[in-house]
């Protein structure tokens, strides 16, 4: 009996990678919806993490995120992924307006030695839910994106990673003198994900 409850909460590297990449998929959708990068009508509601999440129905965006998730899982399982950044840029000027930063710390013990960790699904979901709530509430303090925007995703990997054919090296697309707000974190005991949003300071506040 005891072993059965224990086995339920067991988390493997592969499972953890799946949770993190899935989390990123939903977070990206939520950001794109809440920041109005894509029109509201192109999203549908789904239940996830005990919340109503919005997922894009735009085929192009869907494939992009799906392809991204496949690659991210691969890197996560190898423990090679350090950070994922979702960048929102002005469509007209390509100026970086927002950076959604998801830093990932991987427990090296797990990757190297295959150690199995324990953490209940429920607890992880609760932590993710808190982040998702924060993402949705960010609208209240982030500056208005009052121009058409586009987005891109950057992956920070270890140096020894071979660049896949579909990926290219990129610059960091940093914002000069940004305002930063740290959001909640979640931890699968294998991957620890810290969320941080940095954005261009609104000139309005300065005056």
């Amino acid at each position, binding site marked *: 009996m005891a072993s059965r409850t224990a086995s339920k909460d067991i988390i493997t590297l592969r499972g953890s990678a799946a949770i993190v990449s899935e989390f990123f998929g939903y977070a990206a959708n939520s950001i794109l919806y809440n920041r*109005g990068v894509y029109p509201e009508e192109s999203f549908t509601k789904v239940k996830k993490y005990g919340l109503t999440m919005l997922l894009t129905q735009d085929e192009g965006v869907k494939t992009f995120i799906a392809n991204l998730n496949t690659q991210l899982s691969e890197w996560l399982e190898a423990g090679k992924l350090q950070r994922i950044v979702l960048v929102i840029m002005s469509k007209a000027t390509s100026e970086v307006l927002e950076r959604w930063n998801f830093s990932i710390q991987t427990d090296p013990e797990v990757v190297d030695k295959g150690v199995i960790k324990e953490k209940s699904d429920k607890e992880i979901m609760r932590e993710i839910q808190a982040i998702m709530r924060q993402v949705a509430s960010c609208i209240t303090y982030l500056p208005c*994106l*009052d121009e*058409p925007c586009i987005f891109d995703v950057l*992956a920070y990997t*270890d140096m020894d990673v071979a660049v896949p054919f579909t990926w290219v090296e990129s610059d960091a697309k940093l914002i000069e003198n940004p305002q930063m707000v740290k959001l909640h974190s979640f931890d699968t005991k294998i991957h620890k994900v810290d969320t941080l949003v940095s954005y261009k300071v609104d000139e309005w506040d300065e005056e």
Partner: protein
Amino acid sequence: MEAPGSGSVPTAKRRRLVPRPPPVPLEVAGARGPYMPPLCIKSKNPSLKCYGDRFIPDRSAMDMDMAYFLLTEPKKEKENTDMLSPAEEAYKRLLAEKLLNNRSRILAFRNKPPEPEGIVQQLLYETLTSSQTKPARKCRHIPQSSERTLDAPGIVDDFYLNILDWGCKNVMSIALGNTLYLWNSADGSIMDLVTIDEDDGPITSVSWSCDGQRIAVGLNSSDIQLWDTSSNRMLRTLHGVHQSRVGSLAWNKNILTTGGMDGNIVNNDVRMRSHVVHIYRGHEDEVCGLRWSGSGQQLASGGNDNRVHIWDVSMASSNLSLGHNRWLHRFGDHLAAVKALAWCPFQSNLLASGGGGDDRCIRFWNTHTGLCLNSVDTGSQVCGLLWNKNEKELLSAHGYVQNSLALWKYPSMVKLAELEDHTARVLCLAQSPDGFTVASVAADETLRLWKIFETSEDAKPVFKTVNTGMFNSFSHIR
């Protein structure tokens, strides 16, 4: 990496309790004081025990001695960095490389996510901005070149004529020599309405009536012809209004006001057999600019005698035997002929007037008080003025020296744009009925269309195209 100074630590176990200060900079610099590690341990371990009743956050992680040392001995370290051995330098470089630069590789997908669709995004953007405080004023794009160029062969290069007008049915009329052409801007079709006899021509002025049905044509012979453009027939000819050519025309409902070379301005009621209702005498030379105000209450006239007159309808006496009507205001400030006149669309008592080659000024008048509000030297002969109906902007057309069009912000009179496509002096300006497009005709025998007043936000109202077909004439009582 084991520091030599740590020899005084009694046991390995104990060492673990104390977070060590980052040894790297000191070690590399070779500035590690011999007293450092012992002091740390001695001072800290008792403090952990003695002050256990208080919560002092992370005091144990602090190292006061270290901090003190770093604060007081910065010089020493600097000196040391100057004399690093090559080996140490290499080590530093390696360290920095490991720590800073080459830690990660930033990758992005080759295929970018699809861009949000323009129209939907625009809508979203508009709803967003309208729901938020005040929408940022968008910069308007001012096209730097004309949108369209039409040939105007045989145009009479005479500053005093008004040979271009754009009616409210979206048909532009232009007189080239003895022929009057109609250009339908909706479908681009061109029609020549009439060619005047050699003896009467050339055409010296054209003007559309307010309903866009009739067109008045002033001739060199002093006659004025009235044409119906729906049936392409001449309605009547007004004889004997002036002694010489009719260079300016203006409509005010059924009143056709004509300005002649004889300096007279005559109001003609085109419905009446004896059509002359008022004569305004005031100019001593040719009248070359005539404009009714938007309300139809005031008439502005400019002449070759460098004067601008404002005539008020209510002051006009219809008793012709009295011989004259007095002007409301007389402005003698211009130093050259005044052809360019424009009533402001957003301020009914504001008139802009531009002087000719010797004057080169645009002046603004309050026609109620008769005060000159502003004067701007443009540096060129002012041939035409037009207000933007959507923005507080004024467009001026110039002759000698610049031969350009200039867009000004009102009231600051900051020059927003200068358009220099014309190679000879601009003779006339006309504005499309929707107010977005401006036509300019110049002595270089070209007619150019400019989308200079176009705003991106405003939905363009759809204008009915003029129908010169047979069914249109049924709506007329003949």
